[in-house]
């Protein structure tokens, strides 16, 4: 049987155990008559074992705190934690609702827009969330269609975040008139009937990002934020501020563009 040529790549792959059966047999046959080459490949294999053994202990060492922090503390998780802290502080020192909450500092500000997203979202929530028979236009059973339709009307990709892990399941959504074009509203409901709406609109300035802000409009609690081309407001009358923050955080994570 005539021998086929064996390349250096074949030898490396053979030593790494990465050849198919046929090729492996061929290389083995080739090495059988070349003891020096066979020894070289065997030496590579021994070295590989030594290298793996030498550094293996690193895998079972506890992760240093600073690295665990570097892996987890970043935005947005860190941001949410910082905001939660500020909210607690705000409540403790009696900061009025409607103040802007930032991780770095608390800033008192007049309403930045003439009709803030929080107010519009609160009004929409108050209008539709008590509906028993017609809370939404398109139900969650047709979620794909709902999302495609709203995306088309808003002119940007709209998604309904999954909030089931927080006990809120999607009821459906509807299209609403907004100041600068159509707005989407998704409605969620818990098993015991608590309702939550997510109000989504396009933002004119596309590169803005804000921290979460909290506002109370009458009885409606609203967390709202702007993330590049989209403005979001999460509204509920039934949920506590902490529950709402947790949900806002869940939405934020999933809606990241």
């Amino acid at each position, binding site marked *: 049987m005539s021998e086929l040529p064996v390349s250096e790549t074949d030898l*490396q792959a053979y030593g790494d155990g990465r050849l198919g059966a046929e090729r492996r047999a061929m290389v083995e046959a080739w090495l059988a008559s070349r003891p020096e080459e066979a020894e*070289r490949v065997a030496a590579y294999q021994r070295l590989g074992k030594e290298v793996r053994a030498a550094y293996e202990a690193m895998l079972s060492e506890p*992760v240093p705190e*600073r690295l665990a922090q570097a892996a*987890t503390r970043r*935005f947005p998780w860190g941001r949410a934690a910082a905001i939660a802290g500020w909210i607690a502080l705000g409540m403790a020192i009696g900061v009025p609702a409607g103040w802007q909450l930032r991780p770095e500092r608390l800033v008192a500000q007049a309403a930045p827009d003439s009709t803030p997203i929080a107010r519009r979202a609160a009004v929409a929530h108050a209008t539709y969330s008590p509906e028993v028979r017609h809370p939404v236009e398109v139900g969650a059973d047709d979620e794909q269609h709902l999302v495609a339709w709203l995306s088309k009307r808003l002119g940007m990709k709209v998604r309904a975040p999954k909030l089931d892990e927080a006990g809120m399941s999607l009821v459906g959504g509807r299209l609403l008139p907004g100041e600068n074009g159509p707005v989407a509203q998704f409605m969620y409901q818990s098993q015991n009937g608590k309702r939550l709406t997510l109000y989504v609109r396009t933002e004119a300035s596309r590169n803005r990002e804000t921290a979460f802000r909290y506002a109370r409009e009458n009885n409606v609690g609203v967390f709202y934020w702007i993330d590049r081309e989209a403005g979001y407001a999460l509204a509920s009358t039934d949920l506590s501020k902490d529950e709402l923050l947790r949900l806002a955080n869940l939405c934020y994570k999933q809606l990241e563009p």
Partner: protein
Amino acid sequence: MDEAQRLVELIPRLRRYARALVGDRAGADDLVQDTLERAWTKLHLYQQGTDLRAWLFTVMHNVHVNRMRATRLADPLGDEMPELASRTQPDALVLRDLDRAIARLPADQRAVLLLVTLEEMSYEEVARTLGIPIGTVMSRLSRAREKLRAMMLRQGAATKLKVVK
């Protein structure tokens, strides 16, 4: 599972590779920390559903290359390498020899050798991670192994014959 959790789970592997790549523990952990921080600022470039490990190793590679360029450290260990490993550890000497030998490999050969040997990445994965053609992966791997073998042979001979340079 969110990215933060997956990043935490990958830390031990990043540390192992960084430890072998950089040669000392503190420097390795600095590299891992820079990598994690860089990963967060670049996370929007990571495509959901693709291999997060391969992506992170790419980030680490880029961070490492930039740091090497910035510090111009050709050989961070040299002959002045301090005794880092504890003497009571039986593998300490082997580790030290290996560290020295690996540190003397050219940086791009070292990366290929370690990704194949430690991470047991496929040759294709290594090519993607380092952004080089697969032919280059194979030639660097071959050269790295041959150099490492020669260095370890010399070290072995030196130890046995008690020859001092």
